[in-house]
């Protein structure tokens, strides 16, 4: 049992560390984990779930706003980008946040192609992050089920 736990824990450590290294997550994610405790044991999962819901909603708004045949209301697009930038920043979703920064600049420059490109990239990026985090949570579950404790992995 212990060997299994140790192995899972190592896997978990490596996996989580790689998420930071590859720029999926930044230290704000670490801050989020600090807020999780016995009183709020699922806090990180809950917040991430809210974040991904936000992604779906806001990306939908942006797509609709960019889909206007005729004049595109870039300020409308920008408003959604601003919101997504805020929540991705609060969650530590580094790549998504970075894309939002670029996206915002394109909005301000009324650059249609730039906006469409960014939108596509953000869509890909948030989904990739979601999958990665799913894998991470699964590892956590396995560790707990094997009787072990989830190791603390920071940046």
């Amino acid at each position, binding site marked *: 049992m212990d060997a299994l736990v140790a192995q899972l824990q190592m896997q978990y450590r490596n996996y989580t560390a790689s998420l930071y290294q590859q720029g999926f997550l930044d230290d704000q994610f670490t801050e989020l984990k600090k*807020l999780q405790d016995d009183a*709020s044991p699922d*806090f990180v999962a809950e917040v991430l779930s*809210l974040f991904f819901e*936000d992604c779906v909603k806001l990306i939908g708004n942006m797509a609709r706003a960019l889909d206007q045949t005729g004049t595109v209301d870039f300020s409308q697009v920008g408003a959604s980008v601003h919101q997504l930038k*805020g*929540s991705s920043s*609060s969650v530590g979703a580094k790549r998504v946040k970075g894309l939002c920064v670029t996206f915002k600049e394109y909005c301000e420059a009324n650059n249609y192609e730039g906006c469409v490109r960014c939108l596509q990239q953000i869509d890909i990026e948030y989904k990739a992050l979601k999958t990665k985090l799913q894998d991470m949570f699964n590892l956590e579950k396995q560790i707990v089920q094997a009787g072990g404790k989830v190791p603390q992995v920071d940046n």
Partner: protein
Amino acid sequence: MGMAAEPQFHVLAVDDSLFDRKLIERLLQKASCQVTTVDSGYKALEFLGLREGVESNDPDAVSTSPEIHQEVEVNLIITDYCMPGMTGYDLLKKVKESSAFKNMPVVIMSSENVPARISRCLEEGAEEFFLKPVRLADLNKLKPLMMKTKLKKQKLEEIEKTSKDENGTVAAVEPEVKILPLQSELEPKQVHLQVVQEEQTLSSNKRKSMEEGLSTDRSRPRFEGITTAV
């Protein structure tokens, strides 16, 4: 650190984003604060018993007269800047303009680092301006501030109560009362009042002077009907 400390401070958090509300709520709980979250400046004013320009005696208002608000004691307001309708800045102004809450500490949060915005808020009386994402370390900075305001309020209430008891009328309370030097400012005032329950005053003053490090003997002569200004 296993003991859950009893929440000492009640914070009213204002943010139009559900996501941000959830975050700030958890942050504040983790910092051992009691939290109430609302999603707009209007709701915040309602919660405080203030409404748009009305320190309300309006029977239709959600809360009633300003005195009632003391039952929901709030030690700090933390608000997002960018909100539809009433911005955090507007809320700040309304709070500072009210007589009931002008001393309430208000903290503004924003995801944007705009120096002009920051100085405007600070000039209007905001205690602090936090850039989002807000962190635990930021909130821990607020504790001494909330403690000071809470103590000050308690002290003012104490003075009012003591003056009322002894004289039947409320003595004038200095708005600029400080906490630590307060003892020495208080004593002359109590001396001038007709002290009916001298012993009570004596013992309470004894306690105070002991806290100040003075001997009780020295303090006693002061309060045997001698009304010398100290």
